[in-house]
């Protein structure tokens, strides 16, 4: 009886929990591979704890921006970022979004903070946070735009105040720096041109 119970629990756990790389970051989900195949521009960055620590060594303490960046990444367990740009709309489905959300939402420690879905435009935003002893220990953002899909996963003690100051770090773009048109709508394209990381298609990041 107990053995059967154990197998069932493990089985359920296996369904819910994505494969975890040695770095503690999840292995890429199958959906990502499909999205990458359809995207015109792919940016994939995977930085484990050791890699972050290594990169931090090369952030010049005398440079204000470097110092701010180092402070932000200090102590993090990993950063997992995916950005897929498409030539035209409709290159991904709501089912795939849901699969991605499910894949990264592992265990009960993650709490959904934002879950916005615009049926008209098809845009959606999901923000989840992992809380450990009342402190944020992970941040997940899934941002689905008509022609762009982005995933951000930050593991470890996230310094939210530093995140909010990301815009202050040179070259990263301004958080909330919106070019509003006369109707109060943000000029999304202009934002994208300014803030987008133009990376060649293919993997950028390196696992541990």
């Amino acid at each position, binding site marked *: 009886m107990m053995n059967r119970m154990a197998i069932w629990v493990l089985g359920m756990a296996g369904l819910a929990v994505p494969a975890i790389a040695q770095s503690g970051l999840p292995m890429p989900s199958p959906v990502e591979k499909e999205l990458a195949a359809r995207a015109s521009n792919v940016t994939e960055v995977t*930085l484990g704890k050791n890699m972050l620590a290594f990169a931090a060594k090369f952030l010049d303490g005398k440079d204000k921006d470097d110092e701010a960046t180092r402070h932000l990444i200090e102590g993090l367990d990993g950063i997992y970022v995916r950005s897929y740009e498409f030539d035209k709309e409709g290159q991904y489905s709501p089912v795939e979004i849901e699969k991605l959300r499910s894949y990264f939402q592992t265990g009960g420690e993650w709490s959904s903070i934002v879950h916005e879905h615009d049926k008209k435009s098809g845009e959606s935003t999901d923000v989840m946070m992992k809380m450990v002893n009342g402190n944020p220990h992970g941040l997940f953002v899934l941002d689905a735009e008509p022609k762009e899909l982005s995933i951000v996963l930050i593991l470890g003690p996230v310094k939210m105040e530093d995140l909010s100051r990301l*815009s202050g770090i040179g070259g990263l773009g301004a958080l909330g720096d919106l070019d509003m048109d006369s109707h109060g709508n943000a000029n999304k394209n202009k934002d*994208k041109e300014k803030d987008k990381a133009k990376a060649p298609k293919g993997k950028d990041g390196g696992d541990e």
Partner: protein
Amino acid sequence: MDFEWTDQPEKAGSSEQDREFELELRRAMERRPAPPSLKRRIMQKRSSQRTARQRTTVIWWQRLAASLLIGAVLAGGFGWRQMEERRKGEEAKQQVMTALRITNQVLNNMNRKLAEHDRSDNGK
């Protein structure tokens, strides 16, 4: 029996018998001729040892040269390793910046959408 050690034992105060014995001993201990083959063997062995020593010397010089070369390569390699580490470090730093740039963009998008959502709610 007391022997007086002198270069002229015949003048010592030892007995005749003692002197006789010593003379016998001297005769018994005359140098024996070395075997005829001894010199040939010595010269042959000497020749082969010298050749071996020269070969060893050459080998030692070769080893020394090789060690110096390896040392130079390693030193150069060490410098190359430092440069390589620097390059990798810069690469890692760029990846961090890329990740943060995307994060910033995503958060911007999130804020924009939230702002739009608020505006549309207020507009109702």
